[in-house]
């Protein structure tokens, strides 16, 4: 069927690429210990890209009822004169990764509901506060074909659960996520982590602001990393909107910081040996021992910059746009930060006076290109003499990553999957904290 579509489109154009996806998802949510919702979705779609006379055409459809309309929409879009300086890739012998665990098929919604109840009950009993829990299961089939012989497919299974212990009268919460290719229990360690952070910070405190030590948790490291992701994006290199232009090989962070993208690590779900453009994936160091090593590219921006795609063309839109509806663009989908040598609880002991950023508000605002951040704490835990003494409200942590990430005090010896990547907790010194008196 799709081979036929390639042949049909090839009649009109020089090169053809098809992206086909289908997935089924279940989401279960518990609020305050009560099962609130089960939402399911079975979706599919096809996206077509063509190249003719150095111009790119694009179209998509949810239901491939008439292939001719899909092709004509792509041809019609050629008049946009989107000039490209690349060809779709040739077929290679790519690595086969372990991305799918058939056990996921045996995981029923009933079992997930049981797990959600279990987590809710234990945490509610341990913390005495409102607990919200979410559980998610998805199986995705992705196939990419092009007229150069690429025909790759990957089947992916994902399971995750997360729990939040909520501070009364708000949505501020201590959060933990557990992720795997099949069902994985929310462990005692995960429960202890939430219980420790929540129970020790129940009291509201009003310390004085100023420059102090600030610990970002794996769940809030994205605030800082977001700025780096922006600054190393091949699009922003091409458009010259990154402050890192011309700084490859220069030291931008503390030598303890190493950040890399590793699509091939299939211990975690969503590993990939090819990107959404059929380009082979490989490990890419972004920052090594504080030194800026690489920018990342998709085919389009690599073409503009006369370099090669690093295998980072993904169809990700802002705010969860449907993948078939967006063109691939440079994206780091498998970002890791190298762990350090400190146990999490020992890191807290290193804080004479400081804040743990357990939740951030407004990470998406502020001058991201410049590397600036200015976030509300939701919550911020206040630490004195190595002990958590309470949580702060009405407070902000602000700075610039190219200054803050030079002042590393310590890095946790484990990393966890959260928003934007897999990060350890990192303790920084001399960060500006504003607290309303």
């Amino acid at each position, binding site marked *: 069927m799709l081979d036929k579509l390639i042949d049909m489109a090839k009649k009109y154009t020089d090169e053809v690429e098809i992206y086909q996806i289908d997935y089924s998802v279940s989401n279960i949510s518990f609020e305050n210990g*009560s099962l609130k919702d*089960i*939402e399911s979705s*079975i979706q599919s779609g096809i996206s077509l890209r063509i190249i003719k006379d150095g111009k790119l055409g694009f179209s998509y*459809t949810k239901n491939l009822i008439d292939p001719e309309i899909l092709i004509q929409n792509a041809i019609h879009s050629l008049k946009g004169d989107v000039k490209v300086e690349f060809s779709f890739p040739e077929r290679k012998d790519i690595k086969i990764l372990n991305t799918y665990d058939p056990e996921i098929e045996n995981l029923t919604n009933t079992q997930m509901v049981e797990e959600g*109840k279990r987590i809710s009950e234990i945490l509610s009993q341990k913390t005495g506060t409102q607990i919200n829990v979410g559980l998610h299961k998805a199986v995705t089939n992705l196939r990419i074909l092009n007229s150069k012989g690429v025909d790759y497919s990957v089947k992916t299974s994902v399971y995750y659960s997360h729990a939040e212990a909520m501070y009364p009268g*708000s949505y501020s919460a201590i959060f933990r996520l557990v992720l795997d290719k099949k069902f994985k229990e929310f462990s005692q360690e995960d429960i202890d982590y939430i219980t420790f952070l929540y129970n020790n910070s129940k009291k509201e405190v009003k310390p004085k602001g100023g420059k102090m030590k600030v610990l970002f948790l794996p769940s809030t490291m994205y605030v800082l990393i977001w700025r780096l992701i922006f600054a190393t994006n091949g699009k922003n290199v091409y458009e010259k909107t990154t402050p890192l232009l011309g700084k490859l090989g220069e030291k931008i962070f503390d030598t303890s910081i190493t950040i890399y993208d590793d699509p091939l690590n299939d211990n975690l779900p969503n590993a990939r040996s090819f990107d959404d453009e059929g380009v082979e994936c490989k490990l890419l160091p972004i920052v090594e021992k504080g030194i800026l090593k690489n920018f990342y590219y998709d085919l389009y921006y690599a073409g503009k910059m006369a370099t090669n795609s690093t295998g980072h063309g993904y169809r990700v839109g802002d705010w969860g746009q449907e993948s078939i509806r967006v063109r691939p663009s440079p994206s780091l989908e498998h970002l890791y930060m190298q762990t350090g040598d400190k146990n999490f609880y020992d890191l807290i002991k290193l804080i004479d006076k400081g804040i743990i950023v357990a939740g951030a508000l407004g990470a998406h*605002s502020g001058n991201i290109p410049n590397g600036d951040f200015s976030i*509300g704490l939701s919550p911020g835990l206040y630490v004195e003499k190595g002990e958590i003494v309470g949580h702060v409200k009405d407070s*902000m942590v602000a700075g610039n990553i190219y200054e803050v990430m030079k002042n590393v005090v310590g890095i946790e010896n484990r990393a966890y999957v959260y928003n934007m990547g897999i990060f350890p907790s990192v303790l920084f010194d001399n960060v500006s904290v504003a607290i309303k008196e």
Partner: protein
Amino acid sequence: MFDVLRGIISKVPADYVDIRYEKMWETKIVMNKREIYQLGENSGDGYVVRVLKDGGFSSIAFTKLEDADKALKIALENAILISKNSKKKVKLAEVEVVKDIFIPPLNEDPRKVTIDEKLELLKHYNEIPLRFENITTNLHYWEVIREKYFVSSEGTEIREDLITCEIRGSLVSFEGSLVQNVRVGIGGSTGFHKLRNREDVFEKKTKIVLDLLKAEPVKAGVYNVILNPDMAGVFTHEAFGHFSEADLIEDNPSMREKMKIGAKLGNDILTIIDDPTMPGQLGFYKYDDEGVRARRTYLLKDGVLSGRLHSRRTSAEFGEPVTGHCVAEDYRYAPIVRMGNIFIEPKDMTFEELLEKLGNGLYILDAKGGQTSGENFTFGAQYGFEVKNGKIGKMIRDINISGNLYQTLKDIVGVGNDFELGEVGGCGKGQLNIRSCHGGPHILVKNVVIGGV
């Protein structure tokens, strides 16, 4: 279409079933500086079914008609699973059965404008900032036509179309290593005419993004501030509006306690309304995605909490009237409670009187993203000015505001007599709502925490 949908849900042995089929046409032109990055017209479609059985309420979205039986079976099983495992039984508030076809009137249908003309207009506006060598732009034209069909087992049958178009993006200026940016957006729900003859908007934003290069970073601290209508709108939407959405607080007892009807939350001068029925505004619709007619809803009246936004489910749960605020992003989602057009009701102060009352402080304009945790909120502003002795002084940048909702509602001490609603929207509460609209008058707020960089 109604026949097909009726046929699909007729087989389900449930207490209530509804189905929504949507066909969506999208035209998108993306320009990065002078290069066209994307251009095209496409369409997608899909179904969303919701099933209520023995107090369990569950939904499923699917793409292919041939998956309908499988999907309905899953939704029914899930509803039963919820019913068995939930302490609370879901009820849906009683509503009027409606049969209606509503196609909104347009001033120049964007479907009748050629894509070449759309591109030319986008290029025309793009050239305004690009006259300056130290500015780069990311601008797009985006048109979304949603044709929605809704059928329920109660007999409601509605078709409503939502037509949205916008030209929107960001302008970025540079000087050495300094990078500044502002957002720009025009458009709405009433047709292509909203995009014509708007050069002034792009001229104004061009000047601001250039001026920002010379502006001073604001010093962190606590200030009295005047917020312009866009900033006031973001405050109203982010800090207050979300907690008027009943589904957000339904299962949070401590928030429900704080947001009790009759609670005196704000200053006497403060009245907040959400009204999706305002013709011509971005957030306009006639029926929500549960087939409920939208209603103007007073959320805060003279500082007293007087209502909230509901789905049929939350309306029954809270024992409060339905408001018609349950809306979905597209064919991939079941609806959730959303704001339509939310704003602070204007009062009697002129801008000059607000400045005079402020004396010393800041004048803060145009929002740049915001977020809330319930009682605390944070949002950015694109630019601002110092105010000394009631006079507007030099420009400031890098402004981020943070505050406590309940305290801030009391600290609003002046409400202007002007009124402006936004032309482009984008609220991401799990789903993106491009018709989310907010605004209001200028307002004066005491004791706002400003975190600089």
